[in-house]
């Protein structure tokens, strides 16, 4: 193996596993105890980078569990699912699965869904800017073609299903929130994550709307998404949903 690759492999192993330090130390100048302490600085940097990246993506979870515990979560998550990119925006994409399996957060079974909500918000924050479509454009489509259209939704738009009140938990942890803090833990909420200009919005989405949007986001035609929704929610009001969606500039066009 070329020397450079051998050095980097040994150094990487020592960062991920302290017991591997001697193999890295043989490449380095200086007394063994000093080298140990210096490698420990890099090991701490590695965890700090994971903490910083996850804190940026999951600020509500950090508030919920506290900074110190969150640092431990970052360290444990990184151990099992290390960063694979020099762009830390991508780190922590599987944080929800980690939280679902990590034994010390099992008393907060809603945490993985909250993580999915925050991930969707994080993605929406950096999604492409796209102007909303005018409702008049929809009116211009010949009625016989309407069934077959597939909407192009605003970049970053996402639906996050949950059996827990994740929208409420997210809302009361937003900066500047000054309302009451009660949470009805029996309530199941589905989050609609969207961009309004440059702001990311999270709202409680009625189950019928969520079903329609999920089908449509997967590329279903208007007719198919509507019938899949009506099968389960006979009182679904497609017209009302579309009016709200156009008003919120969530529809950006149709897919050709």
């Amino acid at each position, binding site marked *: 193996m*070329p*020397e*450079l*690759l051998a*050095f*980097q*492999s040994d*150094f*990487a192993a020592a*960062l*991920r596993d302290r017991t591997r330090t001697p193999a890295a130390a043989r*490449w*380095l*100048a*200086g007394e063994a105890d*000093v*080298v140990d*302490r*210096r*490698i420990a*600085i*890099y090991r701490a*940097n*590695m965890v700090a*980078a*994971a903490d910083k*990246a996850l804190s940026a993506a999951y600020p509500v979870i950090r508030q919920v569990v506290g900074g110190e515990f969150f640092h431990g979560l970052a360290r444990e998550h990184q151990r099992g699912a*290390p*960063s*694979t*990119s*020099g*762009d*830390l*925006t991508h*780190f922590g994409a599987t944080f929800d699965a980690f939280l679902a399996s990590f034994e010390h957060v099992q008393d907060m079974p809603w945490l993985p869904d909250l993580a999915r909500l925050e991930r969707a918000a994080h993605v*929406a*924050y*950096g*999604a*492409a*800017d*796209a102007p909303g479509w005018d409702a008049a454009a929809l009116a211009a489509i010949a009625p016989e073609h309407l069934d077959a259209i597939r909407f192009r939704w605003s*970049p970053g738009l996402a639906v996050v299903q949950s059996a827990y009140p994740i929208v409420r938990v997210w809302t009361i942890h937003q900066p500047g929130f000054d309302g009451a803090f009660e949470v009805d833990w029996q309530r199941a909420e589905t989050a609609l994550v969207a*961009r309004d200009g*440059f*702001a990311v919005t999270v709202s409680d989405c009625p189950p019928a709307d969520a079903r329609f949007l999920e089908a449509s986001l997967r590329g279903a035609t208007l007719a198919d998404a509507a019938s899949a929704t009506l099968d389960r929610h006979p009182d679904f009001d497609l017209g009302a949903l579309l009016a709200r969606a156009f008003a919120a500039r969530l529809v950006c066009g149709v897919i050709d």
Partner: protein
Amino acid sequence: MTAAPSPPHGAGIGLRQPHYREVFERRPELAFVEVHSENFFLEGGASMQALERARAAYPVSLHGVGLSLGSADRLAGEHVASLKRLVDRVEPALVSEHLCWGAVGGVHFNDLLPLPYTNEALALLADRVDHLQSVLKRQVLLENLSAYVECRDSEMTETAFLAELARRTGCGLLLDLNNLYVNARNFGFAAAERLDALDAASVGQIHLAGHDVVDDCLVDTHGAIVCDPVWSLYADAVRRFGPKPTLIEWDTDLPTLDVLLQQAAQASDIAEREAVHA
């Protein structure tokens, strides 16, 4: 290799999110602002809008922290492609990367790890820098690192390595004087003597920052004012190389904007005073 237009000689600051609003409202006089490239590998949204506003007001310097040019096993093509998109969008005055590695075997440490300064590493870095400059169609500056360990196999000093890299590839150098000072203290050498290896034309930018002291080690935190020995080193560098675009770099425990502007003004004063003797 065509050199992109350089920012006017003078001082700039790292532009960080908590200062966006104040910078856009006050429009302080700055030669340029610098941001971390990876924070803007996004398609749209508030961050990209802020960068576009900054670009409209100032020359922008894109400073990469995640490319890992020195990884022995691979260069991340998707990272280069993201940087290329950003460079095309922003048309920056300066583009810089670090002389370091940060990933191996598919795991990224998101840190700036030191290389052994060997001929093997030099050949690899020369290939990588050639590739990067040809993809970006512009000169890139390579920055010297702060480090807490050094490789015993090094065959030359870091500055000699950088000087040779510049000679082989036409890249420029981003001379971080705090990093040089941190290493001089951590490894016991005279910082100013290391400047002897560099020629004025290859130095494209200077970074100034603060550091922390942890036990027997100086740690490069970018979280404090520039210390007196680094200001002295800066005066020395200006006498040797002439005035260069100079950045006040501050990333943790961000101070008020005025503190950054004061540090930038101090850099400008020194550059003006010392350039007379250059």
